[in-house]
């Protein structure tokens, strides 16, 4: 399902930070993880990912580090900072409130809320 770009704008940083909360990841890994874990709904274009990561890094929400991995390939790993963690918690609580509100509005009951907490 193709999601409107404007709707995705605020969600993708949150999704990336949510993934990085679990562990450090490199760019390609993030692309595939976001796509798989959102059932392809949040398909992250490669051209979108790196600017997004650089923006998060500029805001001090994530930090990066080059690491050698199997086969001595270099990968740039991103990890969430403390500041990023605080922001993520704030964003998630806002997101939940939004989903709850939208659920009531669209389905008529807060029971219909959708969990956005990724496994």
């Amino acid at each position, binding site marked *: 399902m193709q999601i409107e770009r404007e709707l995705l704008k605020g969600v993708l940083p949150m999704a990336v930070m949510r993934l990085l909360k679990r562990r450090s990841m*490199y*760019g*390609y*890994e993030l692309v*595939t993880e976001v796509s798989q874990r959102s059932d392809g709904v949040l398909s992250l*274009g*490669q*051209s*979108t990912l*790196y*600017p*997004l*990561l*650089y*923006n998060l*890094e*500029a*805001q001090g929400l994530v930090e990066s580090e*080059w690491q050698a991995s*199997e*086969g*001595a*390939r*270099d*990968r*740039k790993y991103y990890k969430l900072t403390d500041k990023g963690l605080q922001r993520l918690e704030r964003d998630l609580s806002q997101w939940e409130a939004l989903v709850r509100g939208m659920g009531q509005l669209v389905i008529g009951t807060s029971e219909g809320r959708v969990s956005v907490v990724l496994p």
Partner: protein
Amino acid sequence: MSDTAPYMPGDAFEALPDALSEVIRCVVRKTRLWPSEKRDVQAELESHFREGLIELTGQGMSVGESVEALRDGFGDPELTAKLIRRGKKRGRSMLWKIVMGAALTGLGGVGAGAAYVGYLWLAEPHPTVDYVAKINEPVKQIAEADRGWPIMRNAILQMTVNSDVDQVRTTMPLPGEVTWPEAMTWVTQNQRLIPTFIEAANKPAYGFIYDNKATAEFLAQRALARGEPTTQHAEDDPLAPPTLSLLLPHLADYRDVGRLLVLAGRNQFYHGDFAAGWTALDAVHRLGAQLLTGQTLIEQLVGRAMMAMAGQEMRRILYDMRDSVTPEQLAIVGTSQPMTMSLDGMKPNYEGEKLFFYDVIQYVFTDDGDGNGRLIPSQFEKIEWMGQDEQEVSKQSSFHREGRYLHIAAAHADRVTTVDKYLELWGKMQERLQLPLFDPRRAEAGQIMDAALRGQPLGRFQLIKTLLPNLSYADASLREGVMELQALRTIVAILNFKQNRGSLPTRLGELVPVFLTEVPTDAYSGSELRYDAGAAHGPKLYSVGRNLADDSASTEVVESSPGGRPTPRDLVFWPEDRLK
């Protein structure tokens, strides 16, 4: 590496397929980032594509298909580069952001400033009033037959001025002195013109019409007659106020005619022809009085100087003849202009100055159609330069002294505010000039502009500062002129008293009412003119002068105030020294 074999980790050190390398090159180039940032982006994208190739070929796709999938999935390289650039720049150091911010602000400021300066400089005035015609209005009402200038003009063109005249002008010799022969040569060369000069002087009005074209013709004819090179006058700048470039070359000629007539008079007195001598001096006085009715302040001051020249010589003659003058001679004196003219005529006429101001305003400001407008600095610059030597301007002009920015600041003055302020300051100055010469508050007249500029934004009234004349000197000079006329009349009264009573009066009060209607007041003290009949070398009549102190008729020249104009301690009318 075959197209069907999986892309293995060991291949990571091999070059990426061209299609992907091209995408990376394209993105990296278009980011326009710093080299270190580009290297980082390139390494990350290479890493990204390698991971992709390994993953996709591992899933069974051929290398070609994987490359295609990765390239297609990457999106628009141009947009990616733009977004990467934005993200990377956001991550740059605070110092870089401050420096860039300042640089961009500076550049923006310079650009805006340049645009503003262009906007100011490129404006043009739209003058609507012919102020030269307005200045000429009163002159044109004078009947042709009553004008002295046309007669003077023809006589001046015939006047001989040889190389010796410079020396004569400087020394103004008395009979027997070294340069007297040269002086008499000059008088003789122009003797035939003297009746014409006297005829012009006896006309009721001056009658000079302000017209640069006619004046340029006069200059050309004069140069031709004297064998001098003709001065080429540049075409008038159509955007320069014509009132400010009015040519008045004849003022120097008038002064020469004055000197010539004084020397001719001296010669006639020397040969015993009192009537002819006095007539010559009276003519100098009359020519001066004509110039005093001119529309420009400079003409009025030259006129005042000529009247002073005549009066000084008259007082000297009467002092020398104080024991021998006859009733007939005193009768001749009594009918001459200094004895009969109204003292009210000795007042400055500032109307021309105001017309010049209004003319400048219409050439220096734009016209919004509602009587307002903004100042055009390039036009303002012309006003400051007009009629001045370039080097002098460099030294003196506020434009050069205080810098060009002053003109930008001055541009904040609008037309209406400028005119209002000028008239307000003019009024204040006139108020102060009504005060007696000895009133200390009168000095404020010369400081009106400085006081107005204090506390004002820089350049706000710069134009007014340039245009508002300091009238203190002109006003004081004309008041001195009144006093000189009163002194001459008092001297004639003293001589008439002596003729009738056989001795000099001991005090001036004795002259009233038979010989004088009232004792003249010293403009510098407010009390009677100083008179000493019993002085060792003859009677003395004087004013305390600009230093306001009685220095016993001392003519020593001193500065009336620190840095002020040099002036004699006392203004001594009798005994009058020779022409200075």
